[in-house]
């Protein structure tokens, strides 16, 4: 008996060690980013730049310490990321209202109402998930330019009022179907119209999935790259993702890395905060996706 317990504990310990190692490996990018953002300029001119922000500089003359200079730079110095952040927020906030609203309305139609062509439309919608987005980007761009939305962020926001995305509709529909029917039935008997039933009964019960949608939409549009890349070409209108790309990724220089990392830390903070606040719901939300089989 004792030997058995001992063996089991040994396995458990080995297991934990493995997990810790794995976690360290996975968390490495974050640590790297934070460390680099605190590195001083002199330090990154070395032939081999160390991990932690402490070290001698290239000529071995100056002992470098961690510094917040990079953070000051991105807001005051050459870069002015507050404006870009605001541009990004405008897009994100609009979508955070439009997407859950639109997706839930459509999902209610699929989940609780009957109408001619329902199965067909649903199947059609699901099949659009297989479309490579590239096929649609070019004609959409031409379409938007011809109606005058060419150099603005409008193509990234307004179209989301029409459905909000096939995947999102699917998720909300799944969720709505798992809500017990009694309340809805009762309300129907009492004579409430579909819209009232949607707004007053079903929606309040959908809070978990709506939170999932909200966070997902935030993440999606906060880091959206391709959309702003083709629609925004004036520096003042760039979103944060594009601004960082143009400043750091496209003419990459090792000496600019601390500034880039500071910008990166800044940009990653918001999704990270949301994630930590809502992680339970997020993981559960993903579980619901998994259940479709």
């Amino acid at each position: 008996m004792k030997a058995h317990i001992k063996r089991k504990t040994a396995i458990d310990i080995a297991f934990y060690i493995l997990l810790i190692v794995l976690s360290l490996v996975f968390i490495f990018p974050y640590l790297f980013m934070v460390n680099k953002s605190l590195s001083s300029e002199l330090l990154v001119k070395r032939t081999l730049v160390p991990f932690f922000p402490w070290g001698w500089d290239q000529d071995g003359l100056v002992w470098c310490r961690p510094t917040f200079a990079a953070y000051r730079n991105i807001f005051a110095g050459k870069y002015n990321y507050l404006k870009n952040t605001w541009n990004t927020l405008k897009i994100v906030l609009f979508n955070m209202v439009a997407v859950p609203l639109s997706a839930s309305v459509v999902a209610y139609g699929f989940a609780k109402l009957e109408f001619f062509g329902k199965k067909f439309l649903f199947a059609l919608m699901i099949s659009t998930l297989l479309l490579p987005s590239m096929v649609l980007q070019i004609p959409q761009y031409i379409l938007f330019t011809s109606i005058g939305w060419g150099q603005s962020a409008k193509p990234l926001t307004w179209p989301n009022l029409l459905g909000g995305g096939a995947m999102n509709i699917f998720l909300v529909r799944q969720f709505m179907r798992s809500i017990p029917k009694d309340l809805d039935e009762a309300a129907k008997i009492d004579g409430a119209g579909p819209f009232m039933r949607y707004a007053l009964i079903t929606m309040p019960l959908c809070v978990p999935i709506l939170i999932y949608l909200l966070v997902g939409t935030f993440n999606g549009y906060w880091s959206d790259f391709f959309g702003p890349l083709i629609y925004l070409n004036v520096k003042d209108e760039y979103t944060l993702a594009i601004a960082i790309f143009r400043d750091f990724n496209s003419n990459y220089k090792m000496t600019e890395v601390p500034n880039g990392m500071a910008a990166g830390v800044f940009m990653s903070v918001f999704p990270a905060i949301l994630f930590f606040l809502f992680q339970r719901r997020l993981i559960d939300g993903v579980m619901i996706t998994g259940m479709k089989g």
Partner: protein
Amino acid sequence: MTSKGGIGKRILKTVKKSWAGWLFVLPLVLGLAIFTFYPMVMSFIYSLYHYDGVGMVEDSVVFRGFGNYIEAFTADQDLMFTIPDGNGGTMFNRNSVFYTTFRYAVITIPINLVLSYLLAVLLNRKTKGIGVFRLLIYLPCIIPGVVSGLIWRSAFDPAGLVNYWLDKIGVDVSGLTWFRGETTAFPTLIITGLWGLGGSMILWLSSLKNIPDTVYEAARLDGAGPFTRLIKITVPMSTSMIFYNLITGIIGALQTFSTYTLGLGKQSGLYLYAVKIYEEAFNTASRYGYASALSWILFAVIGVLTLLIFRTSKWVYYGEES
């Protein structure tokens, strides 16, 4: 119900029943029509023309039939399968965008599936604090793409972190060119993609949860070891998720745009198909017609692969009714 009273009455009845539903799904119908089907059709039509985006110049819209498609396979410098070898002959073009994208998909899809699956199996326990580990492994997926591109670029810089540590343990780093070397760029790209395993892992975890514990209990009582349990129970019961992940994996891998985010979009060994389409349509040229043709070629390839998988999908076990 007889058809006495005619079609008109039937239609009226349908409308009466459905009007509410139609109203609710109206946004979707409009959205699909305007932003999905219309563009899809137009995209195909554009692909049959030489369509220069400037549009105001003479000759900017010329009908070409399938000329764009032919050009893509025979004359386009980036896509061609054969190139001159300097001695008057031809050799296989190892930097062909087709070949690079194909290689990328063939390597990353299995790796991603298998490794993330194993990770999920590893973390599918109820031990204390397992949630924390799951979180940490998922964390890299929250970093915005642009930022992670920058991180990897600087980590694998010749003066960067990976070389720093390798140097510390005594490896000669002067020959290690990571992203900039002709032969080393591709493996480096694959390696940096591994940090995204957390995303797939979460999906696997959800499907693994659906396998009832009772099945495992029974197997354990029958004397099956952990490895046998994995192969005989876990894998077969997750085939529906494997199916889903395989398809999304193919669609995703063939459209990878991350090399552009790294700032290395057009580099020889890393030139991927989605970047090529972007370059043709929006960046250096504005050859909308040609780029549309390229995107339809992609669509066709994805369509064929998906169809193949669906056809041969008898092995998928659907655990529950959807």
